[in-house]
């Protein structure tokens, strides 16, 4: 490895100086339209992208529409229980087919010329419109709905890949699978997406949201007012001072940090602010985890908090609530994001209420913390766009010989962020394989 590169190949826009322990990113990566175009054509065309959760498609015929990696998709579940992903455009002239966000149906009819498709198999069903076409029209399936090249699931989290030759999802996830397990193991009956997911649009380069999501360094400064709020309800302890934990790269650009913080979790850490009525319910959940996993792993699942990033754009915040976000660039300086709250299936109504309360106060767009994150994106974007070209520093906690994709440090360090950038740099630099 040369002194100034991350990994081979490289764009030259991410620089590592192992003597000076300096890791820097050229700020044009946040503002240059050419970089934005290359990100769409490489990162979002070759990596596994989170598309939805199994709980959103429970019954045969359930469908939902969503824009993933810049493509309008229909996700459906068929009678055999399999989930498929189709492009949401008629094979005739390209009109959007499904206009509802979700629903249950056997067939979908194009509003333009009335072509009808079976939404479970994707097959063109309609015969009425076929006069004037040859007898063997569509026997080869040319006019069936176009399928996304790959769709695979891990623990009920469904991912798509637009590259037919991509490695398997499980290989791709590498060390991140362990952290998805920690999230999914909270419930024996599985997790579910709670009604009220959000789709939002805001100024800022998409990578600012990614970085923010697994950056514990900014918490005490940017979110001071949030921690002051927490202090008013959590038995007068200082939340910032009691945090400890680590951050690490999980391979292939994925990363996480995990901390101990006594701020309460519906699964399964009771605090006085949740009320006495919730105490036995939460303790029973903890006992269930003990039985299933033994005390050590149960303690980790129940009482630690983790922020996980799965390269390039899936963020899972398993803290006082459980949230899942994806982010996508609409331009160098504009992002869109989906945000969902998850809970455990068949969750006790009181614990569900506590979960949503926790979620709202922090992660929600009207909460006491996330709006300040969005403000930071806007301020960074302004500073990057309206000052001369410069470098952003991501060196905190760097060590001389660290393996960039697997480095580990204190949770307030930036090891996990260096892993993400090293992978970004490889892929935009023209790497032949996505997996390392």
């Amino acid at each position, binding site marked *: 490895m040369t002194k100034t590169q991350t990994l081979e190949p490289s764009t030259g826009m991410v620089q590592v100086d192992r003597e000076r322990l300096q890791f820097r990113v050229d700020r044009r990566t946040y503002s240059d339209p050419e970089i934005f175009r290359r990100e769409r054509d490489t990162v979002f065309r070759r990596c596994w992208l989170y598309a939805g959760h199994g709980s959103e498609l429970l019954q045969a015929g359930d469908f939902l529409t969503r824009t993933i990696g810049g493509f309008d998709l229909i996700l459906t579940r068929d009678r055999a229980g399999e989930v498929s992903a189709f492009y949401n455009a008629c094979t005739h002239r390209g009109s959007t087919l499904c206009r509802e966000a979700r629903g249950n149906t056997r067939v979908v009819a194009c509003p333009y010329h009335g072509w009808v498709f079976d939404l479970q198999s994707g097959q063109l069903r309609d015969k009425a419109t076929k006069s004037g076409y040859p007898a063997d029209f569509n026997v080869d399936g040319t006019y069936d709905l176009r399928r996304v090249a790959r769709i695979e699931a891990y623990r009920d989290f469904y991912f798509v890949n637009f590259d037919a030759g991509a490695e398997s999802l499980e290989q791709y996830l590498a060390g991140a699978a362990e952290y998805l397990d920690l999230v999914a193991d909270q419930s024996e009956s599985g997790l579910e997406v709670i009604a*009220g997911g959000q789709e939002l649009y*805001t100024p800022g380069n998409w990578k600012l949201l990614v970085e923010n999501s697994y950056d514990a360094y900014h918490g005490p400064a*940017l979110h001071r007012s949030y921690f002051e709020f927490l202090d008013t309800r959590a038995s007068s302890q200082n939340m910032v001072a009691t945090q400890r934990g680590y951050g690490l790269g999980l391979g292939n650009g994925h990363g996480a940090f995990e901390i101990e913080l006594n701020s309460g979790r519906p699964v399964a850490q009771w605090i006085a602010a949740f009320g006495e009525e919730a105490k036995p319910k939460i303790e029973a959940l903890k006992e269930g985890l003990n039985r299933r996993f033994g005390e050590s792993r149960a303690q980790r699942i129940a009482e630690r908090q983790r922020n996980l990033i799965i390269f390039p754009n899936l963020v899972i915040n398993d803290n006082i609530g459980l949230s899942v976000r994806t982010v996508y660039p609409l331009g160098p300086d504009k992002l869109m994001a989906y945000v969902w709250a998850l809970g455990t299936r068949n969750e006790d109504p009181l614990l569900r*209420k506590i979960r949503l309360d926790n979620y*709202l106060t922090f992660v*929600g*767009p009207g909460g006491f913390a996330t*709006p300040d994150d969005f403000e930071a994106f806007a301020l960074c974007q302004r500073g990057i766009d309206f000052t001369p070209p410069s470098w952003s520093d991501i060196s905190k906690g760097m060590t001389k010989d660290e393996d960039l994709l697997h480095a580990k440090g204190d949770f307030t360090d930036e090891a996990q962020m260096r892993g993400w950038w090293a992978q970004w740099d490889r892929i935009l630099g023209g790497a032949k394989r996505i997996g390392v």
Partner: protein
Amino acid sequence: MKGKIKREEVEDFLYMEARLLDEWRLEDWEKLFTDDGRYLVPPVGISNADSADPANTLFLIADDRTRIHQRVVRLMKKSAHAEYPHSHTRHCITNVELRGHDDSGHRVSAAFTTHRIRRRELITYVGQLLYTLVRAEGGLAIREKRACLDFDVLAPQGGLTLIL
């Protein structure tokens, strides 16, 4: 809930509330709520925003009286970065209708447009306000304020930092 209420009185009350918000007199605004008062903003893009329950649906905001207070405390701090410096706002209320009353109070609906001007940008929030008002010493008080946004997605701010 006994006792007559007139639209004119309700309108005066809502205009006064709007002015307190525009003047960032949030400590005074907070006092308009009853001790069991709630301030709710249901998720956007749903069809039952008027009846959805924050106990089982992810709201944008679901403040009980304590959290209304905490929201006010936070918004008046310099460290509430998304509203520092405070944006300029104009809360406009129209289409005020009395919708009957029951044990919980008088039901009122109104249309709102709340403009937010900050850093060269104007954002307008549009929607319906649903109030439950009760008689209080010297006038009216808010038992519930539910602001139902007409948006289908959260744009362009991506969030909701001010009080609608």
